[in-house]
């Protein structure tokens, strides 16, 4: 799956891919202040399973945990399950339903599930559907943090670590052979990284077509821009 980071305080974005085996669970957010944790499990295309280089991977499951509320929300491409203490509620992506309690709300429709906690912390999980009988591609999920400034700056995880300002500079812009892919050098976290200008799609507002977002692509699983290496973010379970 690819990650797009709209850097706080800058009108620019960084993006990177994480290439891991299907089934791997990645820690996306861990916020010790709010008690929120978000993990995502990777799925892969059905085709070319022997050739991992050509295989595309996506988010197939998202697990959202709110420890103080004893609430776990599991979103898969099939269903949305709320574990509220011992009680469990299951909804389908065909449902249009709003679940509200004093402390959280979950809005589900055929395109997205929006989970909101307290004072404006909102996550949006988008269902990307492919043709039902497609022999290779699978339905997959997109995960977005809306109003990330409501999350604490103590957050960690592949997304969470970017909830605080990040200083970076880009220099040595080199058009290369393909004018749409400018190569450059990024100075970030005391690393000099070779980056490429690219475009990714943000589906928050337009679930079907998305909106083009220009970003600096960091190679090698985001190495250098993320704290540590990507394997540091692999966890054993969705919850």
């Amino acid at each position, binding site marked *: 799956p690819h990650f797009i980071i709209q850097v706080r305080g800058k009108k620019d974005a960084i993006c990177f891919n994480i290439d891991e085996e299907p089934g791997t669970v990645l820690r996306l957010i861990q916020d010790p202040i709010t008690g929120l944790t978000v993990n995502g499990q990777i799925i892969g295309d059905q085709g070319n399973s022997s050739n991992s280089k050509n295989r595309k991977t996506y988010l197939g499951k998202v697990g959202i945990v709110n420890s103080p509320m004893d609430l776990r929300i599991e979103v898969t491409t099939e269903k949305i399950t709320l574990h509220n203490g011992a009680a469990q509620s299951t909804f*389908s992506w065909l449902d249009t339903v709003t679940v509200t309690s004093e402390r959280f709300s979950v809005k589900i429709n055929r395109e997205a599930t929006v989970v909101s906690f307290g004072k404006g912390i909102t996550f949006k999980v988008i269902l990307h559907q492919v043709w039902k009988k497609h022999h290779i591609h699978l339905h997959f999920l997109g995960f977005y943090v809306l109003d990330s400034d409501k999350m604490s700056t103590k957050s960690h995880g592949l997304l969470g670590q970017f909830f605080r300002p990040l200083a970076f500079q880009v220099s040595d812009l080199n058009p290369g052979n393909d004018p749409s892919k400018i190569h450059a050098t990024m100075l970030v976290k005391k690393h000099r990284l070779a980056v490429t200008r690219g475009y990714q799609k943000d589906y928050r507002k337009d679930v079907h077509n998305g909106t083009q977002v220009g970003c600096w692509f960091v190679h090698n699983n985001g190495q250098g821009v993320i704290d540590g290496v990507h394997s540091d973010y692999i966890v054993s379970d969705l919850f």
Partner: protein
Amino acid sequence: NVLDEKADDIEVYSTKVSCKVTSRFAHNVVTTRAVNRADAAKEVSFDVELPKTAFITNFTLTIDGVTYPGNVKEKEVAKKQYEKAVSQGKTAGLVKASGRKLEKFTVSVNVAAGSKVTFELTYEELLKRNKGKYEMYLKVQPKQLVKDFEIEVDIFEPQGISMLDAQASFITNDLLGSALSKSFSGKKGHVSFKPSLDQQRSCPTCGDTLLNGDFIITYDVNRESPANVQIVNGYFVHFFAPQGLPVVPKNVVFVIDISGSMYGRKIEQTRDALLKILEDIKEEDYLNFILFDSDVTTWKDTLVQATPENIQEAREFVKNIRDRGMTNINDGLLTGISMLNKAREEHTVPERSTSIVIMLTDGDANVGESRPAKIQENVLSAIGGRFPLYNLGFGNNLNYNFLESLALENDGFARRIYEDSDANLQLQGFYEEVANPLLTSVEVEYPENAILDLTRNTYQHFYDGSEIVVAGRLVDEDMNNFKADVKGHGALTDLTFTEEVDLKEMEKALQEQDYIFGSYIERLWAYLTIEQLLDKRKNAHGSEKENLTAQALDLSLKYHFVTPLTSMVVTKPEDSDNQMAIADKPGEASYQPPSSPYYYVDGD
């Protein structure tokens, strides 16, 4: 069933039961053809047992190719015509209650020597979902072997069929089993039962039939989405049955009649049922038992949680329930209600829980406040619309109308418990129906000014395995979109389910089902509206009652339904004998004998 006194003279050569179900609405036609082989006129009687919840919509008699159609008339008008015919010694038909679920339609007609007669009875009903399935019940009881006997059931469900089964209580061997076929795929289901003459024989050389018993079809639909809205010709129906929600904890008070009349089997069966129910109570539930005879005794002073220790103690209490004294319904109920109210006020039960009163009684109040109207007033005021009351009437010696009124005006319903070997299972079965509330205070909302003539759209509870059905009429038939919201309180959260329908797309999708019957939603709406008006009427007085009666009567006549307010009359005007048949709907009402004697049987 068709027979005469000497069965050999009347040959029943064909009996066909054709059922077409579209979106739970069943349209059934029972056709029997017979010929009089005697050399003199014979009286032939035709009887069909149909569900109590069904409305007869047509009955025709065809003799030697001439058809006499039925006309639905206001009951009083039909009665006068009927009395006149009977006073002249003419034959007549009638409907009476038969057993737990059925009522019997019977009609007799004189058939000339060598003549053929065809009876065709049509009835309709809305199949209700109970414990996760719809059930269609047919009684099969031909009086002789029938050359051409068949039951054909076609089911069309736009949501798709998830399971379909057909069981016949009389199928005892593989041979007869081969006469039964059942299949379903996508939106369509089919059941066929066509036993040959040999398959109908009770033994290879016997001349009598083994077809005698219940034929039950059960099915359910796919629930990919919690709701389904269908709109045809400006009428809509909205089915709502969410799944996958946690059960709302219950605070349940059992108000049990232990008066002397419960002596013997009744009290034993009550104890058995309560012991079984105790096994099913969940630990998060709260409960208590209120026993009433001349006085009231309670198991505990307050509601207690269904912990394993309390359940064990409750079992001991139930085992020691003994009959005694008279029947003080008023104090029994008020004690239970007050206990529930107090528990809520003092926050001794969970905030997100729901309360239920279940009363079991076998008789009328005869001590303390025994005036039914006053008891109703007291109970209504004590409950104040906060929770439902369910009444279980045990046996026949009771004022069931009172129990029904009492339950209906407190958002519950009444159920008869038949005094039989399975009474304990009936009690337990009832409890299972209400044991799992998934939502409380359910309200179905539609855009203002967009709909008319809505059926009931608020419910105290939605129980797992059931279904809420709301129907109505669109103000503007040409509208493009239709939106409905269902709001309810769940075990831990509030939920709002939204259903949006693109009318153009729906029109296209529903075109394929026109082969069944296109006006089914309008008839379903009429059926549901009449049923609810009749229920409301039970507790209405004065001008309100007159108004409800007038509305129900108007719809019954317009849609040709035989309801408790109408009768269907079939006459042979050109026949010198001026024979006449009548189809009626018995209610639970106490029967008033008519001033002039005629042969009419009614009531339960």
